[in-house]
């Protein structure tokens, strides 16, 4: 009997323009027209591989999308996986931040409702006995109405009263030729502003894989410098101001810093593959493949500030290297070396080495400017040359006394966690009160398994870490897995999860489980056409709808289970020193 055979799936089997939400397939004529526009006409196409030409990238990784007046193009807080170039018409970008920005209701975003006291109490008897029960109406798409309309074959959320929005909220107009969304797409961060169409507009949307390849092969670096300029212009100053070092900088000095700052990218941008490979590597050779940013013994050209990703600080130890700390976004490397150099009036070499873990974006502020800041602070009485500036917990290098444990935490990539679950096995009596509390809070379905790798006397159970760079969200086709705007936790919306399992296969920690869903009588819910059971993704949601926060943590009577934000140096040091 012959084996069933199919053609191996390839990258561009299904172009972006043929995916759901597209209007027309990208044609060669469309591509030719695009190549006449800035910045594509400035790109040197000779640097591209024949199999990965600029034309093919535009044809397969881009699509032309039209919007009507008031259609929301991107929403603040949504996950960014594509960038937009305005081809015609105008769009408006919201400039307000915080509480004065467009409310969630207008943006068609439902607030995750917290359970009332009675609803919490009634969980005792209202929880289902069957596993993974869902309301059939929710799964089948019968939901309360929100501001959506069918535009060009696609259901879109729109603003009902555009003129009222323009009157009430501060916005800026973006005109043809302008890019937006590229920083979120490349930095794997959420959108920082809402953008909507003002009148009829036509946009070119490019998914991040396409932008990555253009950046990689464009020898002229036109798009790269455009993106860097955009970051420099729109976000660099406010990013730098998050560090105490820059908070008291004069406007003139800050302007020079913004102009002279350099941007660098290290490591592999692709998905979660490096982490998975690292986790499956029994020898855990951590140094292999980590690009070095500053070598030990080298005189730093300036300070390195992490924009996105994580960086390892290591030191020579006999014939190898020992991890002594790591840096998360917003943290700085090299400041102390420059300070000691100023004190000694001679440039000092770095005592440690900085390397990129996975994909890393950094900003380098030249040494001369840093010295100028320190001198300025010194003259204003802060005595910054001799005393290091007081760093907030978020700006400190994360260190633990037990360097072997620190190395393991980095090697296994647990440093990604903003809410890493850790169990101190010296205290844990294996009573499973944590699992029971989790089950009670989730309709009798526990969302973690009290089992996982043991590092020293700490167990890291199989539970969602709520990563700082959640790769699980990248390929979700419906946005069902999203970052909650209130707390920043990563949660799954049961109403929009289609059970494609992209998130589960992308998660490097196997913390997302696909489960067969049932109705309240315990019957499996099946697809009406294929009769195959429907599945949905489930994971820890930090009890986001419960009044008390994570039930597991509060239920532990021996103070053995705790959640750690691995970006918080003070918390990490305290927790792992116990």
């Amino acid at each position, binding site marked *: 009997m012959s084996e069933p055979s199919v053609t191996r799936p390839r990258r561009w089997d299904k172009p972006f323009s043929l995916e759901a939400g597209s209007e027309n397939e990208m044609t060669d004529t469309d591509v030719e027209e695009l190549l006449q526009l800035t910045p594509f006409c400035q790109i040197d196409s000779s640097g591209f591989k024949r199999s990965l030409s600029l034309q093919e990238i535009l044809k397969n990784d881009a699509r032309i999308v039209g919007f009507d007046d008031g259609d929301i193009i991107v929403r603040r807080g949504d996950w960014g996986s594509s960038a937009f170039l305005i081809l015609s018409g105008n769009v408006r970008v919201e400039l307000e931040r915080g509480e004065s920005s467009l409310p969630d209701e207008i943006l068609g975003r439902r607030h995750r409702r917290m359970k009332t006291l009675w609803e919490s109490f009634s969980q005792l008897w209202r929880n289902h006995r069957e596993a993974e029960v869902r309301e059939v109406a929710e799964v089948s798409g019968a939901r309360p109405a929100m501001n959506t309309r069918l535009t060009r074959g696609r259901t879109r959320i729109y603003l009902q009263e555009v003129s009222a929005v323009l009157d009430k909220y501060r916005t800026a107009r973006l005109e043809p030729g302008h890019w937006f969304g590229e920083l979120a797409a490349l930095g794997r961060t959420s959108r920082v502003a809402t953008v909507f169409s003002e009148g009829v507009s036509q946009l070119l949307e490019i998914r991040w894989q396409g932008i990555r390849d253009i950046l990689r092969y464009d020898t002229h670096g036109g798009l790269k410098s455009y993106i860097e300029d955009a970051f420099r212009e729109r976000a660099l100053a406010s990013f730098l101001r998050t560090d105490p070092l820059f908070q008291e900088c004069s406007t003139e000095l800050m302007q020079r810093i913004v102009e002279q700052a350099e941007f660098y990218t290290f490591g592999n941008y692709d998905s979660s593959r490096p982490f998975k490979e690292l986790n499956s590597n029994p020898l855990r050779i951590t140094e292999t493949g980590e690009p070095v940013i500053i070598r030990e013994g080298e005189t730093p050209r300036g300070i390195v500030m992490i924009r996105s990703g994580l960086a390892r600080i290591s030191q020579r130890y006999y014939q190898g290297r020992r991890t002594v700390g790591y840096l998360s976004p917003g943290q700085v490397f090299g400041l102390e070396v420059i300070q000691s150099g100023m004190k000694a009036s001679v440039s000092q070499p770095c005592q440690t080495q900085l390397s990129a873990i996975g994909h890393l974006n950094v900003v380098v502020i030249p040494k001369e400017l840093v010295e100028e800041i320190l001198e300025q602070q010194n003259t204003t009485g802060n005595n910054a040359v001799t005393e290091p500036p007081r760093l907030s917990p978020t700006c400190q290098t994360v260190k633990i006394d037990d360097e072997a444990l620190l190395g393991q935490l980095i090697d296994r990539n647990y440093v990604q966690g903003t809410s890493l679950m850790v169990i101190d096995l010296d205290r844990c009596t294996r*009573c499973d009160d944590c699992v029971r509390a989790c089950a009670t809070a989730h309709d009798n379905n526990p969302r973690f398994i009290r089992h996982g790798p043991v590092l020293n006397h700490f*167990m890291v159970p199989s539970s969602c870490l709520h990563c700082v760079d959640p790769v699980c969200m990248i390929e979700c086709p419906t946005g069902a897995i999203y970052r909650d705007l209130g707390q920043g936790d990563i949660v799954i919306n049961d109403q929009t999860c289609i059970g494609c399992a992209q998130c589960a296969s992308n998660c490097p920690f196997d913390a997302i489980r696909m489960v067969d869903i049932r109705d309240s009588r315990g019957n499996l819910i099946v697809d009406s056409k294929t009769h195959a059971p429907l599945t949905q993704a489930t994971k820890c949601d930090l009890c986001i709808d419960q*009044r008390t926060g994570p039930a597991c943590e509060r239920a532990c009577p021996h103070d*053995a289970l705790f959640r750690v934000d691995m970006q918080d140096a003070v918390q990490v040091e305290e927790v792992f020193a116990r």
Partner: protein
Amino acid sequence: MIQQLIQYRIRVISFLVLVTLTLSVFWLYSLTLSKTAFASGILLLCCILFLAAYQWRKKLSFLSLGTATVWLQFHIFVGLMSSLLFLMHIGFRVPDGMLEFALFLTYCFVFLSGVLGWLLSRIIPYRLLSRGEQVIYERIPIYYRKVREAVEQLVSENLKTDEENAVADFYQKNLREFFSGPRNQLRHILHSRRHRHQLTQQVSQILPYLEEREQEAMKQIAVQIQLKDDLDYQRSLQSVLKTWLFVHVPLTWTLILFALFHTITVCAFASTSG
């Protein structure tokens, strides 16, 4: 963490102050030659009901009733205070009535089982970490089956057509029972490794009489013996942690029933007892 330590110390100090005040009030009250038994009895009943409420707190983990850690600390504090109240209540004598004696015994068992449980919860986690893989109790039978199947596979691979089946004979005689389920529970609880040493010795003793292939199989079986013994160790100690609650909790409810009956009786006869 430092903040937690400070909070813990504040809780301990305030509790000690409370206990000292309560006992002082009782002592001053006794100086007036009034009977303190009724007051101490009511307070003791309140303490017992508060101690039993800890079980309910566990079920209501989703309500803002304080963390389980704080509840456990107060459970221990109030439990200790109840012992002092109990001694004062019985006048430092063993009661002679039948109901009172039953109540006395039940309280003693509940208190002692509580102290034992506290000690076990401090000692056993350290010991569990010292040996074997950290396994979930309910999954141990699955691991048992995997180990047994691995050993039986090794034995069946070394079966010969003639009658000299050394590995199979050895397995049948010395190991079959060991691999058939949980073994040496008491020895594990007492932290003894004698049985393991004996089995390892038996394996070493038979090795010179085996062919090279059989020797290799026996060495792999020896690894499985260690794995199985570690599983036994984990199971035994985790069983202790789980079963002491099956003693402590039912006894607590028995104590509450006895105490309520005792209270009703005392109240009913209060006017006649003077």
